[in-house]
C-alpha cells in the first residue's frame, strides 16, 4: 500500500501576509488599560505613590522631621493640608516621605523573595528526587510560621531598623513563592521541549534559565505584585508595634503608633491619613495584581 505524495512540498513563507497579531509592548499596555479599568486605576495609584516617594525632596512642603511646637495637632488647613501631629510635624510631608520608605521596603522584599523563591522552586522541581523532598520539608517548616510571627522573631534576634525589617519580611515570603513556582515548574518539566533540550545535550543551568524560567514568568509576576502589598502591610504592622522602622525615618506605621489612639477623639486626622495611605497603596497593588492575573490567563488571551 502506498501513499500518494505530492511532488513538491516546500511551503513558502507567508510572512508577508502574517496577520498583525504581533503587537508592540505599548499597544499591549494600551489594550490592558482598556480591558481592565480597575487594574489601570490600581496602577495609577501605585505610580502616584512611586512618584511621590521618588520626588519627596521636591514636592514635600516641609521637612518630615521638623518639629514645630507652635503648631501642634492642628487640623487640616491651607498651611498644612493634612494637619500636623503632636510634635507639630506636617502630616503631608511625612506621608510623602513615608511613601518612599514603604515602597523601598515593599519592592526590596518582593523582588528578593520572588527571585530567591524562583531559584529554589524551579531548581527543586527540575532536580526532583531527594533534593526536592528535603527542600520541600524545610520550606514547609518555614511556612508553618505565620508571616508576622516569623518577622517578629527575626526582629527579636537581629534588631530593628530598615535593613533588618527588609530581611525579616523577606524570609517568610521566600517559601511561599518557591511553593507556587515549584508547582508551575513541575507541570512543564515533562514537556517535550525540555526533553529536546536534554537530547541536545544542554546543561542543567541552560535548561533551567533558558527553557523553564521564561515559561513561569506569568505566576512569577503575579506573585511579585502580591508580595509588594503584603510586604508594605507587614512593615506597617511592625512599625506600628515599634519593632520595625525606627524614628527618625518616616513611615506610615510609625505615624500611627505615636499616640494616634490618645488623640483619636481630639485629632482624628493623625490616625486617619497614614492608614488611608497604607490602605490605598496596597489596594492599588491588589487591583493591579488581579487585573494582571486576568490579563495573563492564556485562556482569555487573543492569541
Amino acid at each position, binding site marked *: 500500500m502506498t*501513499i500518494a505524495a*505530492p511532488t513538491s512540498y516546500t511551503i513558502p*513563507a507567508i510572512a508577508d501576509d502574517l496577520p498583525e497579531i504581533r503587537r508592540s509592548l505599548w499597544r499591549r499596555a494600551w489594550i490592558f488599560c482598556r480591558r481592565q479599568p480597575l487594574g489601570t486605576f490600581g496602577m495609577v495609584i501605585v505610580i502616584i505613590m512611586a512618584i511621590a516617594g521618588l520626588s519627596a525632596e521636591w514636592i514635600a512642603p516641609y521637612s518630615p522631621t521638623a518639629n514645630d511646637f507652635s503648631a501642634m495637632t492642628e487640623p487640616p488647613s491651607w498651611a498644612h493640608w493634612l494637619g500636623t501631629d503632636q510634635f507639630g510635624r506636617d502630616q503631608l510631608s511625612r506621608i510623602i516621605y513615608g511613601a518612599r520608605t514603604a515602597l523601598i521596603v515593599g519592592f526590596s522584599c518582593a523582588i528578593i523573595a520572588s527571585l530567591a523563591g524562583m531559584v529554589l522552586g524551579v531548581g527543586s522541581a527540575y532536580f526532583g528526587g531527594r533534593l526536592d523532598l528535603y527542600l520541600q520539608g524545610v520550606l514547609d517548616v518555614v511556612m508553618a510560621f505565620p508571616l508576622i510571627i516569623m518577622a517578629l522573631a527575626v526582629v527579636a534576634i537581629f534588631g530593628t531598623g530598615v535593613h533588618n525589617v527588609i530581611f525579616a519580611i523577606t524570609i517568610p515570603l521566600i517559601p511561599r513563592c518557591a511553593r507556587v513556582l515549584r508547582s508551575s515548574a513541575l507541570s512543564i518539566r515533562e514537556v517535550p521541549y525540555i526533553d529536546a*533540550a536534554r537530547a541536545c545535550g*544542554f546543561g542543567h543551568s541552560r535548561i533551567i534559565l533558558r527553557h523553564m524560567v521564561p515559561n513561569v514568568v506569568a505566576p512569577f509576576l503575579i506573585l511579585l505584585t502580591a508580595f509588594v502589598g503584603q510586604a508594605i502591610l507587614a512593615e506597617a504592622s511592625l512599625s506600628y508595634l515599634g519593632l520595625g522602622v525606627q524614628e527618625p525615618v518616616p513611615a506610615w506605621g510609625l505615624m500611627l503608633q505615636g499616640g494616634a489612639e490618645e488623640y483619636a477623639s481630639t485629632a482624628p486626622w493623625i490616625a486617619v491619613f497614614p492608614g488611608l495611605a497604607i490602605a490605598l497603596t496596597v489596594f492599588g497593588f491588589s487591583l493591579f495584581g488581579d487585573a494582571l492575573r486576568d490579563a495573563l490567563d492564556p485562556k482569555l488571551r487573543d492569541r
Partner: protein
Amino acid sequence: MTLAELDAKPLLEVRGLQMHFPVTEGIVISRKIGEVKAVDGINFTVRRGETLGLVGESGCGKTTTGRCILRLERPTAGEILYDGIDIAKLERKDLMVLRRRIQVIFQDPYSSLNPRMKVGEIIAEPIMVHGIERSAARRSARVRELLSVCGLDPKFADRYPHEMSGGQRQRVGIARALALEPEFIVCDEAVSALDVSIQAQIVNLLEDLRGQFGLTYLFIAHDLSVVRHLCQRVAVMYLGRIVELAECDELFDNPLHPYTQALLAAVPVPDPTVEASRTFRPVRGEVPSAINPPPGCVFHPRCPIAVETCRQIRPELREPRSAHWVACTEVRV
C-alpha cells in the same frame, strides 16, 4: 538506496535492553512493591542508512526504547552499542559527543518547541552550545539553510511557534534535529499528530533527507501504513518485547506472529472487493498490565494458537525464514 548497498556492520546494536520503572508504596518509607517492565529484554540492530520501523500499540515500550537509545532514560540493564561503544553506561562528558551523532524528532509539534523562543533561536541554540559555528552571522546563515532544506522559507526564523501550523512546526523540529549534523535520528511518532495530508509531506521530506544526508532512522509509530512506506525493516513490539522482526515487505506480506497478523488484519484495505472477502477476527482480551505481565509468552492469553507450553517458556527470537525473526514456538512455515 537499496538494501544491498547498506553497510554490513550495524550502526546501532541493542542487546538485552531492559527498562524497569519501580512502583513504590509506603507511608513513611517508600518500599518498592513492583516494577513496570516497560522494556523487558529486547535485541535488534539498525544498519547504517536504513530505516527500522518499531511498531506496536500504546504502552508496548517502543517510546521507552527510543528514550533509552537517546539516553533520556538510563536503562536498567542491557547494552546499547552505537558504532561499537556501549552508550548505556556513558557519563555526562561523553554523552555530549554522542548528542551530535544521535538526535530526535518528537511527536507533538505543539509542545516540542519552547513557546518563548523564536524558531531561529530554537534551531541556533544547539549549534551555539556545541560550538559548531562561533559567529552569530554564520549561525543564522546555517539556520536559514536548515529551514529551506526542510521546506520552509527562511523568513520563518523570526516567527514564534504559536504563529505557525502543526506541519510547519514539525518541520522546525526536523530542522532542529538536523542542526547538529547527526547520523542517527529517532523519530518518535514523528507524524502521528499531524493531519493525513501533512503526514504525507513530512514522510516524503524524511525520505529525501535520508538520501541527502545519509541518515539512519529508528521510526517509532503505531500507524502501519506509514511504516510500510518508509521503512526497510520493521520490528513489532508487544508488552516490552519484540515479537517479530523482518524486512518490510516480507512482514506485511507474510506476517508469522499471531499478534502481527491481528494488527495487519485490523488495517482496512482501500479496495471494496478485497475488503469484503476478508474475514476480520479481532484479538480477544485487552493488553495486560506491564507490572504483572503474563508468564511465559506475554501474548499467550490472547493468542489463538497458544498451547500449554506457551505459558511456561518465554519464546526467544528464531529465524524460520531468511531474515525473518519471530518470537513464537508455535509458528510453522
